[in-house]
């Protein structure tokens, strides 16, 4: 059996779903961020797989796209963790269940 595009796509889909479940179900805000990071990695893996199994110009632009995604993910996690720190400083908890200030 030859390892082809479908193997990588299935792997990326499974990784995305695990990350999605972690992001939806974890109690701790940092746990939610970990799930989001897993989802972004799954998308990057899928893009790189398409880059390998596509034509040459597709390959290059896909890799540039992945570089941009990694940069945006780094910005996102920096701001997200700073927000978690501020919430902790004000409420002494970062559990997403107990930060219910906007709940009616």
């Amino acid at each position: 059996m030859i390892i082809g595009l479908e193997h990588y796509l299935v792997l990326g889909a499974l990784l995305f779903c695990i990350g999605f479940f972690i992001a939806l179900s974890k109690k701790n805000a940092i746990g939610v961020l970990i799930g989001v990071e897993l989802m972004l990695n799954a998308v990057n893996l899928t893009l790189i797989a398409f880059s390998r199994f596509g034509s040459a110009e597709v390959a290059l632009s896909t890799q540039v796209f992945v570089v941009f995604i990694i940069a945006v993910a780094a910005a996102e996690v920096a701001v997200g963790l700073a927000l978690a720190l501020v919430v902790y400083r004000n409420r002494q908890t970062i559990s997403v269940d107990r930060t219910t200030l906007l709940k009616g």
Partner: protein
Amino acid sequence: MSDFGFHLAFWSLAAMTLGGASMIMISRNLIHAVIWLVMSMLGVAGLYLTLSADFIAVVQVLIYVGAISVLMLFAIMLTPRAERDNSQNMKTGGPAAIVVLLVMISTLWVAIDTDWGAVREAALTEQARLIGESLIKHYILPFEIGAVLLTAALVGAIALARQDDEDAAVHASSLQAELEGDASVDPVDVVDPPIPSDGEAGS
């Protein structure tokens, strides 16, 4: 024989990635979860290598394994009184599982059923040079916007995470008191800035 090596690499890296991700789901300790995240990211970096994307693999190791995991460990250690536990939320766990199952079925079905028309050309060589050139020539506007975004995120993160001036003064004075050997300051309280009694004890 090289085919066997490729198979071995793919399946072991896939097991590493998915196993690390599943351990994040299972693990009860948040610090362990970050360590499993590092393992999963390393597996993804290895998979990039099997796809001949060497520059992206190096970037993945530098940024995810190096920087983001350390940032997360810092955030966990700066929130000492928050629960360390990484448990599931029981109320949203059930609906989340249903939604994720639906997403998984649809994405897997699309991934397997579609005819992607995959071609197996020779991999790009000199990827770092090609990516750098197209960043500067073709994608110069997104590149600059990304630079502005990173700067804004950096400044924003510092502005959010830095303490207020009074808090910082309290923290500094209690640290000073501790350095001078003032026994009345509890060293455990010194670690946590927003405790007003520390200021009186320190000054």
